[in-house]
């Protein structure tokens, strides 16, 4: 039987793994869907929501950018999709007040950040990233 196995992996932990019927996400080329027996593919993921049609219902993950690889698995007819994300979380586990607070904190940093030297530039970039993450969380949780 053609099956699809999805793994969502972040550096700190394997977030989720299981059987699915479809995998829907967005790369820098646009939205795409992976069904069982999909061609081997390697690509990137832009920050957004990744949807997995799993046996137990649709699962949604907020993925803050990353990569995916789709290969034919070790056993016959199995297609394996691996998502590698620096930060990812189940949409249902998003803490909305915390994301709201993070968004405000990042905006505050961006408001005063000067870009004189390199360390400030790094701080500025990190605040921008934090803001992006907070906004994605808020949008995904809606």
């Amino acid at each position: 039987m053609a099956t699809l196995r999805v793994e969502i992996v972040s550096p700190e932990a394997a977030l989720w793994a299981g059987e699915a019927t479809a995998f829907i996400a967005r790369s820098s080329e646009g939205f795409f869907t992976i069904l069982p027996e999909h061609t081997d593919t390697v690509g990137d993921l832009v920050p957004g929501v990744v949807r997995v049609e799993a046996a137990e219902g649709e699962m949604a993950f907020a993925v803050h950018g990353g990569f995916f690889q789709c290969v034919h698995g070790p056993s016959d007819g199995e297609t394996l999709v691996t998502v590698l994300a620096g930060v990812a979380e189940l949409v249902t586990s998003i803490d909305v007040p915390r994301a709201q607070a993070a968004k405000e904190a990042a905006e505050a940093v961006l408001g005063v950040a000067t870009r004189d030297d390199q360390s400030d530039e790094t701080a500025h970039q990190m605040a921008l990233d934090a803001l992006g993450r907070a906004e994605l969380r808020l949008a995904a949780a809606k």
Partner: protein
Amino acid sequence: MAGGQERILRQRIKTVLATRKITKAMELIAASQIARSQARIIANRPYRLGMQRILIEAASADPAAAKKLLAAPDKVATSLVLVITGDRGLSGAYNASVMRAGERLVTSLRTEGTDARLVAVGKKAAAFYRFRGMPVERSFVGFADRPTFSDAQFIAATIAAPYVNDEVQQIVMVSTRFHSAGSQSVTVQQLLPLEMPEPVIDDQPQKLEGYTEFEPEVAKLLEKLAPRALESEIFSALLEGAASFHVSQQRAMAAATDNADELGQNLSRIMNRARQDSITTEIMEIVGGAEALRSGK
């Protein structure tokens, strides 16, 4: 008087036992941290391996693009050396062996005519290298015990900047690899240009056969992959460094506790003898005094 010696010894035993209490506690704490930091290495494995797999896949699909990004430059004028140590001492040779390996590397780079800039993780490195006339340009402190991925991202962003500006042409990392609780080793690994990872030994080999699609095209994908792969390598080095630190500390503190036990035992033996001696002397004095009194009658 003999009683004075006894008092001094009692005081020393008390000190030794107090120290033993501390080393024992540190040993137990380190032991509990080992399991946790090992679990984090295991949790990180799928990500790290997946990242390496994608990198290999992309690089082998378009060797020309990979070469542009990953090949070593013709001439390395300046190298950046990232040394990963701990924030705390009392961990046996853990900090010293990484720092010495870093020192050897810098020395050999300089004799080859390559300038070396030092960046360190951990509080211990700055003083060590300053003393040896190799000032550390930047120290990252405060997270060596429990690194998070955003720490790794921050380090990666900081050290990649001079590479992108072509101030340095090579980034090398000196860190402790954690093979198992019984075996760690100091390794030197080139971070940038990215070294092609060794083909992954995986429990489930997933060799791509034939045609693979890339989204976006390989050259663009590689450009996006490189910084993430750098973060991933640094993060796994931080995790393994932390685990190695805890193992080293546990071992060092266990040895210190054993030492304190032995010292305490020896001291109490000496003390008991001293007490016995003083008692014997006192009895002799009393007996001698009584004898003198009687014969004087």
